[in-house]
């Protein structure tokens, strides 16, 4: 816990969801996240974009607690959580998806969602018959319905196609009713039609939920994201509204390439 010189964390304003100061993550010689500051307020929608290997997923992993940072502090909902376990962060209302789906592949779609609903401590009676838990089962079915998996509640997840798994990945996070939702490339692997559905889900998200989104599809990243953070080589190179980013030469050069609108 003896972290190097601690950057001062500003006295959090009441509605700060996330305040990150001087965050650093090294893997051997690679500095995946470098001295990063980031503030996110209540109900904000923030997109994170950047070239491959910029450190976006690593940033998520550090915020979620899967990786210990090599430097810096993270304050979430007004509490310093830098050393806290993944589990405790989840209890605080953090939910995330993984860039490569991490699902319970030998369980059914329904059971996957049911487990997502039972994650937080509280009213769950862990030793009751799970099949009798009508209320949660119904909620699980609702969530499956939202991505068109309503008919496949009893299908084993390992048998879903790639895109279907990506969609389940998304609702797993939604089902925990998070206060802070972090999505790592939710549109990857989705067909254009399903992307439409994803947009619907994202735009209809409750305003109480704060959203942090990594996405390479600019039609989503720059439409859903009200603020965009551009990363490159672990650093934050630009931050601003979608239009600023769209018109930035830097972003075009390092990320978007010739075409004016990504995909």
């Amino acid at each position, binding site marked *: 816990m003896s972290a190097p010189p601690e950057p001062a964390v500003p006295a959090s304003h009441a509605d700060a969801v996330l305040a990150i100061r001087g965050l650093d993550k090294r*893997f051997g010689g*690679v500095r995946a996240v470098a001295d990063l500051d980031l503030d996110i307020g209540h109900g904000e929608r923030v997109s994170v974009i*950047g*070239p*491959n*290997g*910029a450190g976006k*997923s690593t940033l998520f992993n550090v915020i979620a607690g899967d990786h210990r940072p090599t430097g810096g502090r993270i304050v979430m909902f007004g509490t310093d959580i830098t050393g806290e376990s993944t589990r405790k962060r989840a209890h605080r209302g953090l939910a995330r998806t993984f*860039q*490569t789906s991490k699902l319970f592949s030998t369980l059914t779609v329904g059971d996957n969602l049911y487990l997502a609903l039972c994650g937080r401590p509280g009213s769950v009676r862990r030793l009751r018959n799970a099949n009798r838990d009508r209320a949660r089962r119904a909620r699980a079915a609702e969530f499956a319905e939202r991505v068109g998996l309503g008919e496949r509640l009893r299908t084993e997840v390992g*048998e*879903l*196609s*790639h*895109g*279907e798994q*990506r*969609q389940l990945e998304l609702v797993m996070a939604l089902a925990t009713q998070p206060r802070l939702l972090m999505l790592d*490339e939710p549109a*990857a*692997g*989705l*067909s*254009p*039609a*399903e992307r*439409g559905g994803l947009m619907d889900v994202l735009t209809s998200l409750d305003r109480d939920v704060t959203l942090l989104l990594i996405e*390479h599809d*600019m039609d989503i990243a720059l439409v859903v994201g009200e603020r965009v953070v551009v990363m490159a080589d672990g650093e934050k190179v630009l931050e601003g509204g979608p239009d600023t980013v769209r018109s930035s030469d830097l972003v075009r050069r*390092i*990320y*978007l*390439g*010739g*075409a004016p609108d*990504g*995909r």
Partner: protein
Amino acid sequence: MGDEDGRLVVDGLNVYYDRVHVLQDVGFEVGAEPVAMVGRNGMGKTTLAKALLGLVPAASGSVRFGGQELLGASPYKIVKAGIGYVPQGRRIWPSLSTHEHLVMVGAKAGSRWTVDTVYDVFPRLAERRDVSGANLSGGEQQMLAIARALLTNPRLLVMDEPSEGLAPAIVEHLASTLRSLVDEGQSVFLVEQNLRFATELGDHILVMVNGRIATDLRSEELLADEEKQNLYLGVA
């Protein structure tokens, strides 16, 4: 069909998972012109790609390449016959470093693709030479998967959603690289979700719906016709 040289001819292909009939009488051809396949999630595109490579058993049908029947052959023989494969989900080997991936697949000296030429196309990989495959970023892994396939110096390249997870600039770079390969005479069969990328590369677009090929269009046709897009792909 006298000159099947370098042509992929698929005919009446049927694949089941258990009793689920996933591919139903699929037939198409890929010649010099690149062909792309689109379709919604779960329609059977990946299954088709795997069946071509011998990675899923087919119940019936035929897959001929350069006049040679490949259905039933081992994957390695199919690759030897000249088909390269970029799998969906990348399938990198975590035990190997980036460089080891390329060295292992190897390439005969003097071939079109060697470890060095691949590094030229994907400089990012050269920077990550000694990083374990598992620790590459998603996009880096995707590049590696493509590079790996190129190193087998295939006559036909089968790619399953190669643009997934790639930054727009890289996608563009990839598209132009592939385009120039096509111009050099490389055959390509591409499964894609990214309509732009698919239409840019594929002259022909096949649309897969529920395990059948619903239609075969020229890419301009599909691009121009919103109604068709809506009908087949659900793009509103």
